[in-house]
């Protein structure tokens, strides 16, 4: 490509300044605040602040509740990612085959994504509310002792379903775009080479889709880490007995509700590190694995 030069040295910086400013104000500044906070301990009344180096982190790692949140997060995020990716892929494959009427189908499927997490949570809350919810009543009629307010496992299932449901449409669109970018003739060539539909999918389509799948995996995990906060807050408030308290929810409940700003900041810093690592891994992988 031809390189186009700017006249002055100053002008390009002016052009990117808004971008840089936004990044500084909304990312670097709060991020550095969090890092700074995580080295401080504040007393209960907020009158005294002490610089304690890594004490917040030490407390965190020896806290069984933090470990619990970590396990909850891992279970939660892998299940949500697996469910939403799996279903989205299934739907996308079906849509790709039957591309007539696909527009209506796509619009229909994209709706959940347009719903705010907290609203999604409320929606599911209505359906599954133990005494009034439609689905809950059905479950009870079928003999299931449904009460997610008391049963941690049920609560977990509910937030997982709600979170996965919300993410499916996003994944679906990417998968569909990925599927449609695979040249038809490649799949036809495989058919002529003797591959049936199943084998065509696993040996041709899926490998060609793997960069998309990997990208989505990372995006989904990041989503589960952060964006499911609204759903959890609306449906279970992290309960019962912290059964649905993910790392992000714990940041909120410790900092905001528990008043432990230092510990909460330390948790945020750890979360940030995880996400940065994931993103870095993704970029490396995707760069290496892109075909064509």
């Amino acid at each position, binding site marked *: 490509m031809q390189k186009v030069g700017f006249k002055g040295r100053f002008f390009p910086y002016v052009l990117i300044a808004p971008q840089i400013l936004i990044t500084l104000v909304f990312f670097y500044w709060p991020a550095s605040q969090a890092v700074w906070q995580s080295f401080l301990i504040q007393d209960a009344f907020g009158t005294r602040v002490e610089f304690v180096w890594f004490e917040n982190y030490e407390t965190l790692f020896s806290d069984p509740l933090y470990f619990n949140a970590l396990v909850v997060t891992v279970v939660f995020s892998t299940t949500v990612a697996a469910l939403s990716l799996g279903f989205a892929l299934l739907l996308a494959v079906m849509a790709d085959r039957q591309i007539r009427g696909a527009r209506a189908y796509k619009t229909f499927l994209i709706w959940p994504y347009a719903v705010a997490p907290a609203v999604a949570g409320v929606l599911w809350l209505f359906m599954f509310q133990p005494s009034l919810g439609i689905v809950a009543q059905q479950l009870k009629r079928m003999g299931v002792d449904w009460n997610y307010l008391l049963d941690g496992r049920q609560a977990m299932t509910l937030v997982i379903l709600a979170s996965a449901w919300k993410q499916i449409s996003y994944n679906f669109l990417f998968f569909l775009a990925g599927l449609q970018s695979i*040249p038809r*003739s*490649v799949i*036809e*060539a*495989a*058919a*002529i*080479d*003797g*591959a*049936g539909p199943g*084998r065509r999918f696993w*040996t*041709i389509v899926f*490998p*060609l889709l793997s960069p998309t799948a990997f990208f989505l995996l990372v995006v989904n995990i990041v989503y589960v880490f952060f964006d499911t906060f609204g759903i959890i807050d609306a449906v279970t408030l992290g309960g019962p007995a912290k059964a649905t308290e993910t790392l992000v929810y714990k940041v909120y409940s410790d900092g905001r509700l528990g008043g432990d700003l230092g510990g909460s900041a330390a948790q945020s810093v750890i979360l940030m590190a995880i996400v940065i690592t994931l993103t870095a891994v993704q970029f490396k992988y995707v760069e290496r694995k892109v*075909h*064509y």
Partner: protein
Amino acid sequence: MAEVTLKDVRKDYAGNQVIHGVSCAIADGEFAVIVGPSGCGKSTLLRMVAGLEEISGGEITIGDRVVNDLEPKDRDVAMVFQNYALYPHMSVYDNMAYGLRIRGMTKAEIDVRVQKAAATLELGPFLDRQPRQLSGGQRQRVAMGRAIVREPKAFLFDEPLSNLDAKLRVQMRVEIKKLQRALDVTSIYVTHDQVEAMTMADRLIVMNKGVAEHIGTPIDVYAEPATLFVAGFIGSPAMNFLETRVGSDGALELDGARLTPKTRLDPGRAVTVGIRPEHLAPGGGLDIQVELVELLGADTLVYGRLSDGNSLVIRLPGTQVPKSGDRMPVHANAGAWHLFDTETGKRLGTA
């Protein structure tokens, strides 16, 4: 190896018919070329043979099996696509081995076949490369290799050379033909390039708007085109056409020439007379005004106009160079004039 026959094959897309009943029998080991302008249904016909499009009517047999309801994988044919359709995530070796693995061959057998194909196609050094690390010509060879390792009953080609540059196209054309001769596998080759069609075909199927207008050897198609369309499509530069009517004495009156049809035609019938540029020579009855001269080295194309306004192209040996503005008399031998019914386009014989 097998015979491929089409019996009144039809195709419609949601009520819109695009193939209107094509019948032909392609003998074992024969190289059939389907040629025609864009959109005439060549690919559709080929894809019905491959099993990639459903057959709306008629019957296709490969060998002694009716394949109408068979999946592509059960038809035992191999296809080379215009964009090659290589598996982008597999090495050249794996691209060729894919179909063999599916058939459950042993590693050793697969290796023998792939190595042999690679040697034939001079792909040896590239076996470990991914398709994207190859040139267009090399990709084309891999696509060929993928077809030949399978040792199928028939090869199907859908414009396999149209993405290559002119020189490579000529070279590959010769190679494909040689390879087909050596392997002696029934082949159907789709192209819109009439030179490719003429040089490669044992048998030509000239299609127009979903109808096979002429099926025959290239020489046959050139010498006795069945319709006006075929006459104009095959041959370069294209045949000249002059419209006229049969006179009361049964002869055809052109601007300064009188033609006697070999077969009797009813007086008053509208007839289109065709004459190939290479069959016109200086001297004689038709008087033209030279408008443009193209020197091609080996020969010269003269674009002229008759006094009645019709234009004519004449192909002369390279040494004869008239100037534009010159007047030049031309003639053609008896028997070189093709006659067609102006309304139906059907061949009426020669004059």
